[in-house]
């Protein structure tokens, strides 16, 4: 079995974008939802100075933990083992899938219930298990909706944010036997809950993600609102937690500030309804909880990110999704257009580093480098700089880079244009000659210049360049002669 192929990300990117832009309902759904989320977040951070201080603290905590990542991971492992948690290391998606399959097989398990886990989406777990006749059912309401729709999450926090109430009502009516069409949200949620409740009891294994893994105590923290995370991790006899290696924090005291930043940035909540701290399987004197807890630590490209000082900043991410909510591109095209488990700005940074630029590098072009994501990021990840860096990696096969597929996006014609541009702009003589030509022959400039003029009128060179205007200006009133008195302006 191979890991999921990600080459579709580059291949069909443009057509997915066009399709999304033409879907007015989809665009309304995203616009409305993102506006709502931005307002909710803003209401949580009324004081800009407080926010800056919090973000700075979040950045420092994540940096400190990343600086000692190898040691913290070892400590996490030993503390988890002390707590009775079995720890597995997966270097690749394929290994992670096989480890999980192995645990399932050990228990002759055929049914898995899942809390929300983007890492499991990253490794394509559901498809992999389906190929082995194992049913993996999503229990997060958003994930449940997209699974019912044979789709994938369009947002890392709100998987079904691309759908409105009416669309979900139709989906439930069509896909769940015996369900009448209703747009009543409480009724819809009630339906989902009823279906899932039974599945929790039938499941052999529960799988969850991890928000913070505490090295000091060997505790796995899970942030959620629906209670499905708690059900998935306590009701089935076996719990598997899938955790990216970057999620480790040093100590218990690191969690509150990060948790605070996470919920406020993600959904504009001061705190979530559930915060689970999992510190091992059921003890002999305990009445509930799983009999076995497994922790699968997933690398899948994270060590490569870690090896590069600049790209390592990617790993600070606490997966709040605020960068998506604030991204004017994501707001227009939605999550599916990116074609990756991780959409939006952080997705543009993470995806090419996991799957390689040759497979997922094109999405770095869908960014105007406007910086809205950087300002929203609770841990100050310089996302535009990283996106730009990955564009560079796509163009150049540099020896000191570890990024997969580096140099694979280089286009010979484009490179040649940039060489020419460089020559023109670093040679004053040629630059001015071109300027002179463009201004003199301004009326000969084409009115159609490719993609630009499809949507805009063509800019026309001025009659005289600034170079010429300044020359004429200086000959009238030489700039080195300071005017005798400053013009009275009051």
């Amino acid at each position, binding site marked *: 079995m191979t890991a999921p192929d990600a080459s579709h990300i580059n291949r069909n990117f443009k057509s997915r974008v066009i399709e999304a832009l033409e879907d007015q309902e989809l665009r309304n759904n995203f616009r409305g939802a993102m506006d709502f989320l931005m307002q909710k977040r803003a209401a949580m951070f009324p004081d800009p100075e407080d926010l800056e201080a919090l973000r700075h603290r979040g950045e420092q905590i994540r940096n400190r933990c990343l600086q000692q990542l190898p040691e913290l991971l070892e400590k996490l492992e030993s503390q988890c083992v002390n707590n009775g948690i079995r720890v597995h290391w997966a270097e690749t998606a394929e290994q992670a899938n096989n480890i999980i399959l192995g645990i399932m097989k050990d228990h002759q398990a055929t049914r898995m219930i899942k809390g929300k886990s983007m890492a499991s989406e990253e490794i394509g777990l559901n498809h992999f298990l389906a190929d082995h006749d194992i049913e993996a059912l999503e229990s997060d309401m958003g994930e449940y909706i997209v699974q019912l729709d044979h789709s994938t999450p369009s947002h890392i926090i709100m998987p079904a944010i691309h759908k409105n109430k009416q669309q979900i009502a139709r989906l439930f009516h069509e896909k769940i036997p015996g369900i009448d069409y209703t747009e009543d949200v409480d009724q819809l949620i009630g339906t989902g809950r009823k279906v899932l409740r039974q599945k929790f009891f039938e499941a052999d294994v529960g799988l969850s993600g991890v928000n913070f893994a505490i090295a000091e105590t060997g505790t796995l923290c899970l942030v959620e609102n629906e209670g499905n995370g708690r059900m998935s991790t306590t009701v089935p006899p076996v719990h598997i937690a899938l955790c990216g290696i970057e999620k480790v924090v040093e100590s218990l005291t690191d969690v509150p500030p990060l948790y605070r930043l996470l919920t406020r940035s993600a959904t504009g909540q001061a705190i979530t309804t559930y915060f689970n701290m999992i510190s091992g399987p059921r003890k002999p004197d305990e009445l509930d909880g799983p009999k076995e807890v497994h922790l699968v630590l997933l690398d899948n490209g994270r060590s490569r990110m870690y090896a590069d000082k600049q790209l390592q900043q990617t790993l600070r991410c606490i997966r709040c999704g605020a960068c998506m909510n604030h991204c004017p591109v994501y707001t227009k095209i939605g999550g599916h257009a990116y074609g990756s488990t991780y959409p939006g700005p952080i997705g543009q940074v993470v995806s090419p580093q996991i799957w390689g630029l040759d497979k997922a590098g094109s999405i770095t072009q869908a*960014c*105007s480098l*406007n910086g809205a994501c950087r300002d929203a990021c609770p841990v100050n990840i310089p996302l535009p700089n990283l996106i730009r860096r990955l564009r560079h990696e796509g163009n150049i096969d540099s020896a000191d880079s570890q990024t997969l597929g580096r140099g694979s996006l280089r286009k010979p014609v484009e490179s040649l244009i940039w060489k020419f541009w460089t020559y023109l702009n*670093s040679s004053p003589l040629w630059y001015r000659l071109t300027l002179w030509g463009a201004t003199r022959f301004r009326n000969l400039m084409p009115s159609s210049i490719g993609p630009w003029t499809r949507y805009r009128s063509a800019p026309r060179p001025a009659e005289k360049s600034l170079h010429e205007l300044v020359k004429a*200006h200086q000959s009238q009133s030489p700039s080195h002669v300071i005017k005798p008195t*400053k013009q009275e302006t009051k």
Partner: protein
Amino acid sequence: MSRLYPEKPGHVYFFGTCLIDLFYPEAGLHGIQLLEREGIKVSYPPEQSCCGQPAYNSGYDDEARSVAAAQIACFPEEIPVVVPSASCASMIREHYPSLFAGTEQEKLARDLAHRTYELTEFLVEVCRIELKDMGAPAKVVVHHSCSAQRHLRISGQTQKLLNQLDNVAIVQQERAYECCGFGGTFSVKAPEISNAMVQDKCDNLVATGADQLVTGDCGCMMNITGALEKRKDPLKGQHIASFIWERTQ
């Protein structure tokens, strides 16, 4: 956090930017004239061309570095460099130091970054300019570029400058924070997305009922006014330097 500003100098460099040079030269000239009116000698080194940002944003670092190096050479004296564009100013201030990190020009790049100012920032914070509005009453909508808002964080200064114009009523657009979709080569590489962004921006600008659009960045202006023209919307744009110069004559 906030930048420390020097006393008003007697002499500055002016970096006109390539877009202004070719498409909006009057904005550059008006910027120079505003500085001169403040009693400052303005040098415009004729060897200047482009800050290198188009190549840099496209991930062509070597190319960007070559062009940037040619600009660094234009401004050798230890005097401020004033730029009538937040985007190009932020290229020099934010990115030259990392672009030249580890090279022989690193120190020069840092030094240049340190003494580079966007025009409105310089007029307000360094010149402490005082304006007397002689223009007719006007209803104006302002577009602050992303570089002004989020990279240099100087949109407040631009606002302060416009607030001095008594006959100008500034109307607010919805989602003023949102990018217009220019992004340099982004508008050519992802034209459909860029178009969706600029159309939204145009909708919000036109909805204000403003007589005209004022902005400090000609990249945004070229994008927005180009789209407005194609839509046959009558709203016209002007660079803030021209807008202020013409109203204070």
